[in-house]
Every structure is written in structure tokens, then in C-alpha cells.
């Protein structure tokens, strides 16, 4: 990356703007601030940023609506801020294509990590699924459709491999149950999460050292799963 990434920060709360904007600038991002959904869409149209940090509780438009409109035009990463306990909004926004979320009150590092991961996706999106990809001490071998840990081959069923590949492709991002179900079993399976539970537990048995305390394949309760490349980060 030659130029600094531009971030559009959308939150109606002025103190939040005043705390976050300098933080992001200090990490080398260019920051533009919008206080309403309308302003956010305008700023987005006028000068598309590299990433949007979007608060879901906006005064004029539902945050999910902003998310949907942006997704209609662009694939740029969206990180959601939410103060609501309601998981539904989060999941709805993620299903609409948001990349990740942070729940208020969050610490600065949490947000910065999400932003880093979301930006990385942009640059790895086009990577072809060939050869081998290393994620921590786990290697995914696309040619042989299996995973390797150290010297040990892990045999995976086709569905297990598909799930692992999907999660690895979106490493460090949360994927909602719905997204995963749709990607692996097709649109008709989105309301049958039990498929996913079974498959996840099979996959955990194979790739996790201790499936009862997964290091890679983390649950995001009521939202989805995240494949983390920084195991033991203590989420």
C-alpha cells in the first residue's frame, strides 16, 4: 500500500467521533467523519473510502440500511459499531455484507484489529485458491484439499474442507451462520443451523488440538464463527 488507507467514520455521537478520529489518524489512516446515514452516503459517493466504520444506531437511517446501500455499489469493507445488545441488528448487518463488528464499549485495540483484518481482506480477495496457505501452524493445501499441521496430514471430507477453506479465506473475520450455511449448503439451508453445528464440531475434532477449547475455530455466540490466525489472543 503506497497511500494511507482512508476510513469513513460514521457515528452520531460527537464524543465518540472526537475520541476515535485522532486514534485512527495516529495509526496512519486518513479519517473522514459523518454524523448521519445521509452524510455517510454522500461522503461515500463523493469520495469512496477504503473502509467504513459504521455505527448502527444512527438518527436518520437504520445502520443496516446504510450498509445495504453501500453494499449495492461497493465491496469495500464495513466494520460495524453497535451499542445495542440485540444480536439481531449485528447479524442483519453482517448478513448484508458488513465485514465485522465491535460492540460498545470497546477498547481501541479491538477496533484497530478489526480494521486491519477488514483492510487485509481487500488485498487478499483476489488470491487464487491454489497451492498452500499457512495460517498459524496450520497449512491449508488447496491442491490436495487437505490441511497439514506440522508434519501431520489431516484428512478432511469435502464439506469439511469447503468449510475450512471458506473460513480461512475470511480469516479473522466473523462469518454469520447464515453466510456459512448459504455458502456450503446453498440458499435453502439457511434455516438449518444444525448442519453447521455438526460440521463445525467434526472439523474442530480434526484441526484443533483440544476441540473443547478451540484455538482456531472460534464461536461468536449467536452471530457466527471466526477463524483466527492469532490463536490464543484471548478473545
Amino acid at each position, binding site marked *: 500500500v503506497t497511500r494511507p488507507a482512508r476510513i469513513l467514520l460514521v457515528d452520531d455521537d460527537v464524543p*465518540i467521533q472526537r*475520541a476515535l478520529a485522532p486514534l485512527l489518524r495516529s495509526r496512519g489512516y486518513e479519517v473522514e467523519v459523518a454524523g448521519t446515514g445521509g452524510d455517510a452516503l454522500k461522503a461515500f459517493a463523493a469520495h469512496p473510502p477504503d473502509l467504513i466504520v459504521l455505527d448502527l444506531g444512527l438518527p436518520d437511517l437504520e445502520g443496516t440500511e446504510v450498509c445495504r446501500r453501500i453494499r449495492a455499489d461497493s465491496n469495500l469493507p464495513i466494520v460495524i459499531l453497535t451499542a445495542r445488545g440485540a444480536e439481531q441488528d449485528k447479524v442483519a448487518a453482517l448478513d448484508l455484507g458488513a465485514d465485522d463488528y465491535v460492540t460498545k464499549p470497546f477498547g481501541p485495540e479491538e477496533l484497530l484489529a478489526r480494521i486491519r483484518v477488514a483492510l487485509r481482506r481487500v488485498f487478499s480477495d483476489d488470491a487464487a485458491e491454489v497451492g498452500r496457505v499457512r495460517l498459524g501452524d496450520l497449512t491449508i493445501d488447496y491442491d490436495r484439499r487437505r490441511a497439514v499441521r506440522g508434519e501431520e496430514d489431516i484428512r478432511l471430507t469435502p464439506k469439511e474442507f469447503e468449510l475450512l477453506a471458506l473460513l480461512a479465506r475470511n480469516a479473522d473475520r466473523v462469518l454469520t451462520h447464515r453466510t456459512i450455511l448459504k455458502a456450503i449448503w446453498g440458499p435453502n439451508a439457511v434455516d438449518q443451523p444444525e448442519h453447521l453445528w455438526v460440521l463445525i464440531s467434526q472439523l474442530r475434532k480434526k484441526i484443533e488440538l483440544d476441540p473443547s477449547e478451540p484455538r482456531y475455530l472460534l464461536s461468536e455466540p449467536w452471530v457466527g464463527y471466526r477463524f483466527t490466525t492469532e490463536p490464543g489472543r484471548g478473545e
Partner: protein
Amino acid sequence: MFRDLSRLAAALAAVALVTSAYVGWLNVTNATMVALSFLLIVLVVATTSRLWIAVVTSVTAMLSFNFFFLPPVGTFTIADPQNWVALFAFLAVSLVASNLSSVARARTDEALGRRDEMASLFDLSRDVLLVTDSREAITLLARFIYRRFGLDYVAICLPKQGDWDVFESGPLALALDRSQLSLDADHRSIVVANQRVQLVPLRLGKKPVGLLAAAGREIEAGTLDALGGIAAIAIERAQFLEERETAEVARRSEALKSALLASLGHDLRTPLTAIRVAASNLQASWLSDDDRREQSQLVLAEVERLTRLFQNILEMARIDAGGISMESRWVDPSEIIEAARDQVEQALRQHTVEVQVDDSRLVHLDPRLTAAALAHLLENAAQYAPARSVITVAAVVSANDLEISVRDRGAGVAEADLPHLFERFYRGGEAKRRASGTGMGLSIARGLLAVEQGRVWGENCPGGGARFTIRIPVKTTAVASSESIA
């Protein structure tokens, strides 16, 4: 009684009149004609008066018939045995006629009485249906019964865990012996303090739900049953209303709790996030001095916001618990305004506050409560009026109350929001656009003022902007001297 005596006198006068007319003037001697005339009088008397009057009239007429018209005239002796027959036939006919007509009269009276009782029952059932306050319903029911039926004492007794709840009404004070009450018995009477008390079971279907006790006028058994039926329905209705109200209260308090949680969810987490991020920014080395100042100001302002939020929650809890007492003293209205401004100084920083107090009278109220309520109105105005606009606070003292109004130059209140402004956690269409504001301030202001019997309302001003007005009933002084307030 007087009426009966005058009727009797009239009846006897009629007999005397006919007798003297026939004897002294018309010279009528035909026994048949005399007997028929007397019979006519007796019949008229019997249809209009009581039986005993008719009987006395009959006997008098018979004696008069015997004395004046049956030979030998002028004596009570009767010569011709045929005349004995005539005399007794007359007496018998007049007595039978009296009796028949008085029975007919009694029937009519009874029918009229029934009609009145039916009307009373009907009125009662209407009264009962109109009662909406469940708590008062049963006492009201007792009062309705006593009034509609002209009784001296009415009690509705409902069994309650081995004891009885007794709801009484009527001028007579009776101490019902509760051990004499029982759901099992049918109609019966007991004697309490020399009063006969009729007891009627109240039944819903077959199930007895209570007892009705009535004293004073005797009420007919059928009517009592009907009364018991209506009372039972009324009681069931009251209990139903009460249950519904309890359910409604529970539902509202649930709704309130979740509104509180939702509100806290947003209103706590947002400032906490800002504080957390700003505090960690303060630790960073990349900050310039200006940045550092700004970030620390930010932390302080957010802490202030949280403090205010907690104050609101606490105040609200105290209002709910009824834990706010009033301490009135003499105070200058401008002092209250000053105190209120101090409390929300932060919120008012960006506005110009104009104060108009043209009165030097003192008012007697609780300055603490009043100022706290006013502070909420000021804070509200500051939130919804644009920065740097003018907020006008005006106090007007009149003979019996103090009015303080807060007028802003904002966009005013949407018509649809006006009726709900003081509802807890209500945030109008416009309010939702603001990050600050918890939907508690105005409802707290109202709660605080209620302790002082004060009112608060909001309206839109003709020239734009909203005006919120507090009115508190107070004693006021004429221009105060130090003695008068000592």
C-alpha cells in the same frame, strides 16, 4: 294513620248524609233502595281504603239501615224475620265486597312494589356496569344497594382465607358477628343489635362467592335472590377488572424495565466507549498538547454525562419509591432559577440564557425540588435548541401560584409528540436524532413537581420554539420584609 282516620270520617259522613237525606228530605223508605245505596258507599270505601275502614263502614251502614229504615223504625229491634235476612244479606255482601276489593288493592300495591324493585334492580345493574374502578367497586356496590332499595344497612361479605372482607354502607352502623357468617346457608336472618339482618348468599351459578347482609326494610325473598345474583356478577366483574389491572401494571412495569435497559444500553455504553478510547489515547505518545487537552476534556465531559445519567436514574427510582419529601421555605424565584442554571451549567454552555423575573415577592415552596425540575427543563431546551440560540426563563408570581417558563428557539415539538412528552423514556421523532438525552428528564421533572402539587406542560410558541411551563401552587408575600419571613 291520619289519612286512614280522615278516610273513615269521610266514609261515616257519607253514610250519615245518605241516611239523613233519605229520612229527612227524600222520605225514601224502600229497604232495597237504601241497602243498595249503602252498598255503593261500602264498595267505594273498600276500593279506596283499607279493609278495616270498609268493615267499620259496613257495620255502621248496617246499624243505620236497621235503626232508620227497618221497621220498627227508631229502634234496633226488627219485627219482620224477612228483614233479618235482608239485614244480614246486606252485611254479608258488603263485607265480601270489602274484602274482595281490598285484596285487589293489595295485589296492585304488590305489583307496583315489584315494579319499583325491578326498576331498582335494573338501576343497580346499570350502576354496577358503570363502575370501572375495581378497587372501589365493591364498596360502591354496597352503597348502590342501600340507596336503590332504601335500606339502613348493607354489607357485602367476601370470604378471605378463613376470615371475611366486609364492605359496608348505609346510615346504620352494625357490627356483624363474623362467626355467624357462612357460605353454606341459604337465606336466613340474624339479629344484630336488635336489628333483623337478612343474609343472602351471593352465587355465581351454583358456587357461593359471598354474602349480602341487609337490614332496614324487609325485602321480598325473590328480590333478594335477584339482588344477590346482580351483586355476585358485579363482584366477579370487579375481581376481573382488578386482575386485568394487575396484569396491565405488570406489563407496563415490564415495558418500563426493558425501556430502561435499552436506554441504559445505549446511554451507558456510548460514553463508556468514548472514555475508554480517549483515556487510552491519553496514554499514547503521539499526542500533541492540544490533542491531550482535548482528549482529557472529552473524558471529563463524558464522565459528567454519565454522572447526570446516574443522577437521573437515582432520582427516578426515588420518585418511584415515593421517597421524595418536601421542605418548603420562603425563597426568591430568581434564586431557584439561579440554582437550576448551576446544575446544568455544562449543558447550557453553548446557549445564551435570558432571565426575566419582574417580581420581588417571595414564594413558599421547596426550592430544591423546584430547581431540580427546572434544571431538567433547561437541559431539555439546551438539547433541542440550536447552539448559540437564546433560552428565555421567565418567572411570574401570582396570588396563588408561581409559574416558571422555559422558552427555546428550537424547532419546537412535533404535534404527535406533545401528548407523550412527559412519558418516561419517550423520545420524540426529533429527540431520536440526538445522541444525548435519555428520555428521563421531563418525566423526572413531572415527578418532582408532583410532590409539590405542581404541574408542568409543554407547548409550541406561535413565534417558533417550544415553551415548557411549571406551575406550583404557593403562598406568596407582598414585597418582603425581613420580619415577615423570619
